[in-house]
């Protein structure tokens, strides 16, 4: 009998912001929900993230952004993933994402947008329901 493969998630902190309380709490909640979780740590450039995706082949990438750099960095990450032919990975961004920025980010293929006060189980369910493979 083949054991069902665990959902593999990469939790990332792109950019210079070092406030990773949310990212760490989320990483732990996903792990407690039975997923395999890798936390990249802080200060990840788009290249760093794409390289880790290539190496680890996760089902989902969760970006935690609080600094306001999301409009600059998230589309860049999506472009670089596309360049590598990676299109079957769920990429979500959460943190402080103003409503008015969401359509722009959605256009680039980003999902999620979970903000402060979101229950962890909501995000766990979101990951389970939005996988692309």
């Amino acid at each position, binding site marked *: 009998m083949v054991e069902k493969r665990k959902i593999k998630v990469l939790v990332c902190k792109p950019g*210079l912001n070092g406030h990773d309380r949310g990212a760490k709490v989320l990483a732990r909640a996903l792990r407690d929900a039975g997923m395999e979780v890798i936390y990249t740590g802080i200060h990840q450039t788009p290249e760093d993230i794409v390289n880790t995706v290539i190496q680890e082949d996760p089902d989902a990438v969760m970006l935690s952004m609080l*600094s306001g750099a999301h409009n*600059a960095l998230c589309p860049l990450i999506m472009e670089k993933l596309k360049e590598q032919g990676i299109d079957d990975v769920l990429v979500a961004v959460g943190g402080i994402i103003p409503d008015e920025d969401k359509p722009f980010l959605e256009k680039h293929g980003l999902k999620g947008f979970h903000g402060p006060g979101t*229950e962890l189980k909501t995000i766990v369910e979101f990951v389970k329901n939005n996988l692309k493979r």
Partner: protein
Amino acid sequence: MTEIDEQKTLRPTKKERKEKFKNLSGIEIKRLYTPDDIKDFNYVMDLGESGKFPFTRGAYPNMYRGRFWTMRQFAGFGTADQTNQRYKFLLEHGQTGLSVAFSLHTIYGIEAIDEKALGEVGKEGVSIDTLKDMETLFDGIDLSKISTSMTINAPASILLAMYIVTAEKQGHTPDQLRGTIQNDILKEYIAQKSWIFPPEPSMRLIIDTIEYCTKFVPQWYTISISGYHIREAGSTTVQELAFTLADGFGYVEAALERGLDIDDFAPRLSFFFNSHNNFFEEVCKYRAARRIWAKRMKNKYGAKELESMRLRFHTQTAGVSLTAQEPENNIVRVTLQALAAVLGGTQSLHTNSFDEALCLPTEKAAKIGLRTQQIIANESGVADTVDPLAGSYYVEWLTNKMEAEAEAYFERIDELGGVIPAIKANFFQKEIANASYKYQQEIENRERIIVGVNDLQVREPCTTPLLKIDEKVAEEQIEKLLKIKAERNNEKIEENLNRLKETAKGSENLMPYIIDAVREYASIGEIISALKDVFGTYHEDSVF
């Protein structure tokens, strides 16, 4: 409801809302406190008068009867010019001190033009690359008259150098300057993560600034030993208290090792605490902090001057407690937190703006933050007597309890070999990660209620106006930087940076060399990059 029913519900009953009542540190709170809870209490030894050892009741004898705490709103965004205008706005509305928030690229010592700064320039603080930006930031503000706090850590020595030279250009000498650099790298490794170099060279730079300021900038607070970020990263109140003071001991020990006299440098150390939701827990934290510090400085480090034992601190209300849901409710949270800080005897205070779970504060939100303090100061009467909560069975019991729990942490840190070995063993990081996860679970299980978040929710669209940072800020900043690089004496800068590197290899104080480089308009990025060549950089293993 009939009258009889109503009487039934009002009748005192043994049944309580919860089985156990616990504060944010997990300390169980009893129904009633009595003299039995503080039976070993000794007024003179445990409290004493305000302004006297062990300072439990307050750092100064008359506290706010002399003057109110400094109202110091942390502000910075966009370009130096934009932030200069916000400072003038706050000063016009009665703010009494400045507090600079720097852009992330400045905090990490890289230029606005660096590709790692993409999307970050001016977003979370004011973008500073060279002395030119600093001159603009304080344009029209007399630096001999105002005190300025700068939230800067790894590159703190460089920003201090820029401040000194900016003041000099205004015609003021360093001994006239009053202010603080945060300069607290230990809590960066523990919590906030804005480190650059490994711990050992970072500590050297800090002790260099202490040594330099002791001689030349005697009114400057050389470190703001910070619990704020430890708390924001998810620690409990007790952890904030214990880890912050442990960092303080770390700096004292490093300065003593350099051969400095405790009574020369200790009076210029300051602290920075958080003020979170549990009112009494916060008040007791500040009281315990003063007592622990005073005792240690006297008994362990041999301080002789009262000034060296006196813990002074700045407080900021808890950013992490602000909710994105019904943001106006944050005005009430901030008021309670600010009141705890005042009743705990803070020397200066930042009250958060209600919109900060959504964006950097708009002008209106920042003004309400400041007004909150002014109302507490002028209208509530709490500032008319010193330490009004003293003598309460509960408050004294909890102050004792927090001291005892902090002491238990100090023992564990000592067992690990001190603060730096404990950082390298991920001790603090794990303790904080565990505490923050537990807190989040308590919210999700509704053991803790956050109004509007996990109870009493309303669904309404967000109508709070948001402050937007124009993407043009980065372009403008890069243009300014390139212009300065074209105009300055680049040969001289190279010479200065080479000299700085050579000195960094030895043990001489680096401050004079940093000042020389800054004066010629070397950028923070260039100076940090020169030091990286010698010191290397730091990497952590992320634990969650």
